[in-house]
């Protein structure tokens, strides 16, 4: 069971690195915004898995709040790029 958590952490770290590379290289603002959204999603998954590792399931509330609120920032940036804010 421990090996599965190891593999999941390695995959999450790889996803974070690739999203960060896309954030730095991305030619337009849309690429960077989508990279931020991807980082938020991977971060929420990491929070849930860490809550499992710590064996404290109250910690999942943090991931829940982050999943709700991380959406708003991306929406605001998208509205600004659209020019309708």
């Amino acid at each position: 069971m421990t090996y599965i958590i190891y593999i999941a952490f390695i995959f999450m770290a790889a996803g974070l690195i690739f999203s960060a590379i896309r954030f730095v290289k991305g030619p337009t603002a849309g690429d960077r915004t989508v990279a931020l959204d991807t980082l938020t999603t991977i971060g929420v998954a990491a929070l849930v898995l860490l809550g499992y590792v710590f064996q404290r399931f109250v910690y999942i509330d943090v991931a829940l709040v982050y999943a709700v609120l991380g959406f708003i920032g991306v929406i605001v940036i998208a509205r600004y790029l659209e020019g309708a804010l």
Partner: protein
Amino acid sequence: MIYFILISVLVVLIIGAAVYAIRQKDLLYAVIATGIISLILSILFYMLQAPDVALTEAAIGVALTTIIFIITIRNTVRFEDERDKKDKFKSAVK
């Protein structure tokens, strides 16, 4: 030891995002980098067994800071070099 890989990647990414946010001339990209800093800082607080601080950081850093900075960029200028043009900046502030 089990999350050593994840915490090392997070520390490297938060330093990289901070340097990127400081040196970037496009202020919109700097705001997005600030959002990444807030995300990684929340995960680091969480890994240090402080979930209430992580909750506050998630609420303040992601939603409130990003919205206020975007509204500020909307009301002023987006690129940092345009700040030299005094009349445009003055008209944007008004």
